[in-house]
C-alpha cells in the first residue's frame, strides 16, 4: 500500500455511535471495520474504541470510532465520548419503535451539546429482519449517490410495505421524514447482511468538511503544544503515523 502518500492526505475523523442497547451499534461497527458479523465478544466498559480507514476519492479518512455502551446508566458518561466528535451515528432498531424515540432524544442531545458542526446520521438497523426476501446481495454495490440532505430514498431498496414487514415497527417513511426535518443523514442498514453499512460511512465521509478540517489543522500541525486552543474546536489531527497500524485494512 502506498501508505506514506495516503497518510499525508488522511484526515482523522472522530465518530461516535449512540443508541439504545441492543440495536446493533457494535455489530454495525464490526461490519464496517472487519466486514464480519458475530456475537459481540468484547466486554466494553463505557465505550469501545476502534479505527478504520475509509477512502474517498483522493482522500483517506481515518475514522476513530467510539462505540458506546448501551446501558442507560452510562448515559451520563456519553458526553465524554461525543465531545469533539465530527460525526455521530445514531442507531435504532427498525423492529422496535421505542428505539427510535431513544434515537431522537440522542439527536436532540447531540444537537444541543455536541460540536455544532457535527454530522449526524440516523441508522435504522436490522433491515434484514423485515426484508428477508427483498434484500439483495448486491446491496453494498449499487449505492445511492444521493447527497447528504437529499431526502430521496435509496432507489429500489425499500421493499413495498406489507408482506414480510410484519416485524417492522418503524416505517421507513416516518424515519426518513424525521431525519429530513432534523437535518440528518438517513440509512436503513443491516449489520448482518452488510446492507447500507458502507454507504452510511461513505456518505458521512462526504459530508464531513474535510477541507475545513485540513485547513484548520495545517497551521498548527507541528507536534509540540499544537492544540492548546482547541478545547472546543473540532479535532482532526493529520495522522502522520499510520504505518504503525498496518493491520487496519481499508475496505471502502
Amino acid at each position, binding site marked *: 500500500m502506498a501508505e506514506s502518500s495516503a497518510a499525508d492526505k488522511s484526515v*482523522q475523523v472522530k465518530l461516535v455511535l449512540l443508541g*439504545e*442497547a*441492543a440495536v446493533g451499534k457494535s455489530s454495525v461497527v464490526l461490519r464496517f471495520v472487519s466486514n464480519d458479523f458475530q*456475537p*459481540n*465478544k*468484547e*466486554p*466494553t*466498559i*463505557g*465505550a*469501545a*474504541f*476502534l*479505527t478504520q480507514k475509509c477512502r474517498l476519492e483522493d482522500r483517506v479518512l481515518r475514522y*476513530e470510532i*467510539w462505540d458506546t*455502551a448501551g*446501558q*442507560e*446508566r*452510562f*448515559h*451520563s*458518561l456519553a*458526553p*465524554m*465520548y461525543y*465531545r*469533539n466528535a465530527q460525526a455521530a451515528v445514531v442507531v435504532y432498531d427498525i423492529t*422496535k*419503535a*421505542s*428505539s427510535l*424515540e431513544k434515537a431522537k*432524544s440522542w439527536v*436532540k*442531545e447531540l444537537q*444541543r*451539546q455536541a460540536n455544532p458542526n457535527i454530522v449526524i446520521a440516523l441508522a435504522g438497523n436490522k433491515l434484514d429482519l423485515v426484508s428477508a426476501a427483498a434484500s439483495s446481495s448486491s446491496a453494498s454495490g449499487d449505492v445511492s449517490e444521493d447527497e447528504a440532505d437529499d431526502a430521496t430514498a435509496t432507489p429500489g431498496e425499500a421493499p413495498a410495505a406489507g408482506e414480510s414487514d410484519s416485524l417492522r415497527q418503524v416505517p421507513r417513511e416516518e424515519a426518513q421524514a424525521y431525519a429530513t426535518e432534523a437535518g440528518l443523514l438517513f440509512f436503513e442498514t443491516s449489520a448482518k447482511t452488510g446492507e447500507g453499512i458502507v454507504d452510511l460511512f461513505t456518505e458521512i465521509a462526504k459530508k464531513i468538511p474535510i477541507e475545513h478540517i485540513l485547513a484548520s489543522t495545517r497551521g498548527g500541525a507541528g*507536534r509540540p*503544544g*499544537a*492544540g*492548546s486552543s*482547541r*478545547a472546543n474546536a473540532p*479535532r482532526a*489531527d493529520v495522522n502522520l503515523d499510520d504505518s504503525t497500524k498496518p493491520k487496519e485494512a481499508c475496505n471502502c
Partner: protein
Amino acid sequence: MSTISTALRNFKEPTKDELTEIFFSIPSAASTPPAPKDEVTNKTEEVERMEINAVMSMGVHGEEDSYAGKLYLIAPYLTFASLDRKSVRLTLPLSTIRRVERLNARAGIYALSLALWHGSKIIVQLTSLRPTADLFCSLLRDALKIELQKGQMKKVKPFVKTCYSETLVTESATVADQEHEDGSLIAEEKDSGPRESTFHGGLGLRFKFPGDPRKLREASKIKLWTQYLKTHGRNLTLLRYPQCTRLVQVGLPNRLRGEMWETLSGSIFLRFSNPGYYEQLLKDNEGRTSASTEDIEKDLHRSLPEYAGYQSEDGISALRRVLQAYAFKNPELGYCQAMNILAAAILIYMSEEQAFWLLEVLCDRLLPGYYAPSMHGTLLDQRVFESLVQRCLPMIHDHFQAVDVQLSVASLPWFLSLFINSMPMIFAFRIVDCFFCMGPKVLFQVGTAILKINGEKLLQVQDDGHFLHLMRDYFASLGESAHPDSNDPRARAITRFQELLLVSFREFAVVTEEMIQGERRRFRSEIIHSIESFAKRSAVRNLRTLERFTKDQAGLVYDSLYRAMCVFPPPPATLPPPSLLTTDDQAGADKPETRIGLKTFQYFLSEVATWARDEKIVSNGFQQRVDRSVAEHEFIDRLFFFWDVSCRGALSFQDLISGLDGVMFNGLMENIEWFFNLHDKNKDGFLTKDEVLTLSETFLFIFRYEIGDAYLGAVSRFMSNAFEYGDALLPQPEEGDDSPAPLPANQPYLNLATFRMVVLADEILESFFETDLTASFRLDPLPESFDAAATLGPSSSSSSGILGDLWSTIATDSNKKMFNMFTDEIGKAVGKHQVVHKPSIGRYTTLEEPKARESLLTPGMRHSVSRGSLRSIDEKDGVRLTPERTTPGISPGRVSPRPVTPTQEKKRERVVSDGDSMPLIQKAAAALLERPQFEIDHVESEDEGDDAFGVGEDEDEGVDENVMDEVDAFLEAHDSGLTEADKEVAKGLIDAKPMK
C-alpha cells in the same frame, strides 16, 4: 420519557462510625439483610460501641512485636488497629473468642488475654484509665454473653469448614487430593458429616486458574501462607501483621485467593452471619425476572470469555445466578455493566455464595456509588483521580489539558473493572489482591504509577486515541522485563508489572485513604451538581413540548419539581416493578416515567404559587425569617386532577409544564375561562350552585392572607352578584351564546359568560384575573426556608438580622431548626417575638382600612419588620404591605434575597457556572479499551506442581528466597508505636498468669 431521581441526595459523607466500620471491613447495618431465619433477626438490638487505647501482643514469644493502638468494641466484633493504622489490624467476630482472662500483672497494668477459636492467643493491655478499662471489660463481657445466647459460638465450627485455609493448615500434605472439589454449593449444615474438606472454591478448581502456576510460584506462596495462617489465625480470626500485607503484595496463591479476598474484604463476615441467605434468595426468586435480567443476560457471554470456565454452561449459569441474586437483593442498583467482569473474575476463585457477598461488599462499601444508576461514585472518583494526577504529576496533567486529552478515557475502565478489563488477568488479580488488603486507595496508587511510568511517552500524546493505544501497549507488555538492557541480571529479572507495584506502593505511598476521603469530600457536591444538572437538561430536552416556556423557565419548573420530590419522594409505583416486569419487547416501549402524586404536587405548587404556601414572617429580635409550609386546600387537589390529562392519578413533568402553561401566559379573558373550567367539574359549560360556592371558597383561600377587608368584600360581592345574576338568568337565558334550557337535574346554573360578567363587575377580581393570578405563579427560585425543605442543598437561606452571618455557618437542618427555636424563645422572653402571615397577592390592601388583621400587629412588630428585610413594607403607612411590582424576580409577599451573604452568593454563582460546563462529565474522557486477549493468561494445563509443597523442579534452589526478595522490596519500616520499656512490659505479659 424521563425519569427523575433524587437518589443522589443520599450520597453523603460517611459518618465517623461508618468510616470505622469501613476501615475494619465490618458489614454496615444496612448491608446486612434481615436474615431469613428468625433467630438471627433480633441482632439489631443496641449496638454497643466503645474504643480504648491498648497495646496488643501475640501470646507467643518471638512471634510478633507488640503494637500500640486502639481496641474497638463494635458488637458483634472486636477490632484493633495499630497507631499507624496499617501495621496491625484485626477484626474478630466476638463468637470466635473462646476465653477472656484478666492477667495477673504488675501493678497498674490492666491486661486481658483472649484465646481465639483457632488456638491463637492475643494479649491486650488496656492503657486507658482504670474506670474506662473496667467499663470496656464489662461491655465486652455483655456483648460476648449476647453472642453466646444467640448461639453464634456454635456456628463457628461448621462455618470454618467451608474455608480452604482449614484444609490447608490441618492436612496440608493431602491438599492436592481436593483438586476436583468444586465446593461451590456446599450447604453449611451443622453436621456436614464425616467429610472434613467441604471448603468452598471457584471455577478455577475445575477449569484451572489463569497463568502458569510454576511461574507464579504457587508452591512457595502456599507454603509461606500455610505458615502464616497457622500462627496468626485464619478466615474469621486472621490477625493482620506486616507480613500479611507483604505476602499479599507478592500475589496470593490461586487456591487460597478466593478465601483471602473474602477475609481481607470482610465479606466473610456477611457470609458467616447470613447462612443460607444466598440460596434462599435464589429460591424465593426462582422463575422471576427483574429489571436487570435482560441486561445481565446480554453480558453473560462477554465476561472474560477467554477463560475456559465461561465457555461452559456451568460457568455461565453460576455467573448468571450471582448477578441476578445481587439484582434481587438490591433492586435499586440492579445490574451495571462492569459488574459482570468483577463477578466473573471472583467466581474463578470462590463459590457463588462467597462471590455474592463479595460483590455486595464491592458495590456497597469498597466502590460506593460506582455502579448506581447515576454512577455518581465513578464520576466522583474519576474527578478525585484527576486531581491526584494534577497534584502528583503536574506535567502530565498540564500536557493533557493543553492537548485536550481526557484522563478518564483510559482510567474509567481501570476503576470500574479493577483493571481486570485492561490488563492480563494474572496481573490484574494481583492488584485486586492489594485492593482487598489495603483498600480502594490502591486503585489510585496504581493509576498514578501507570501514568508516571509512561510519563515520557504520555507527554508526546496528542489525542485520546494515542493515549489509549499507548496504554493498551503498555498493559500488553507488563510481563516483560522492566530493564531489558541492564547488566545486572537481577534488574533484568524485574518485570514491568513488578516495577508498577513498586512505584505504586513506594512512590505513591503518599496517597492515603484519608487523602482519598478528603478529595472525595472536596468534589462531592460538584459531582452531584453536575449529574443533577445533566439530568435536568435531559429532562427539559425530552419534553414533548415546552409550550410557551423557554428552556430556562422549564428548568425552573424542573427545579421546583425536584425539590418537591426530595421532600416527598414519589411512590415507587412509577418505577418498573422490580421483580415482575416481563422481558418482552413491549416492556421497553413504555419507558418508566417519573410521576408525582398529590402530596408531592402540593409541595411543588407551594414552590411556584404564592397562595399555595403559608408564609409566616417571624421576628425574634435576633433574626427575621420566613417560615413556610405547604398549604392544603381542596383547590390544589382540584388543580392536580385538572392537570392530570391522561387520568393516571399522577403528574409527569410534562403534565406540569402543560398545566402551568394554561395559566401563566394568559390575559384577562383566558384566565377567567381557565378558572371557570377548573371549577366546572363535568365540563358542561355550566357551574352548578355548589360549584359557585366552591369557586368562592377558592377565592377565599387564595386571598386568605391579604391584609384588610378589600378581598373579603370582593368575594362577598362576587357571591351575591353571582347568585343574583344566576337566579335572574335561570328561567330565560339572556346571552346569545347560551346553551339550550339547562336541565334542572344537573343543576347547571352559571355559564361562562355570566361568570365573566360578574367578575368584570368587580375591580379587585378583574385585576386578579388580569394580572395577579398569573403573577402569583413565580418560577424564580425561592429562598430556602421551609422547615422540611432544608434538603435543598447548597442554596440560600432567608434569614437576616444580627446573627445573619452565623446562619450560613449552621450546617444542618436540625441545627437550623434548633437555632430558630432557640432565638424564638429568647425573642418571646424579651418580647420581640413576632409572627405575621404574608399575603399571597398583596395588592389592594390599602383600599380599605386594615381592620381585623391589623390587630395581629403590634407597634414593636412594625418596627422590626420594617427594619428587617421585608421591602414591601411601606414605612409611612405602618403596616401597609404593597406588592413589589417593579422588582422583577421578587414575588409579592416574598422576602427579598438580601440576607444571602456574599459567600453564599459566590457559592451559588460557582455552582451555576459549573453546571453549564459539566466539568467532570465533559472532562472525564472517553473510556474504552475492548478487552484484549493476553497470552500470559493462558491456562497452563500442566499440573500445578505444588502437590508436594516442594521446591519447583526447574527453579533454582532459592525459590522461597526469590519470592521473599520480592516481598522485601515492599518492606517498609513498621513503627510499633512503643518504647523499649513498653515492649518489655508487653513481652512480660505473655507469661503472665490469669488472675484468680
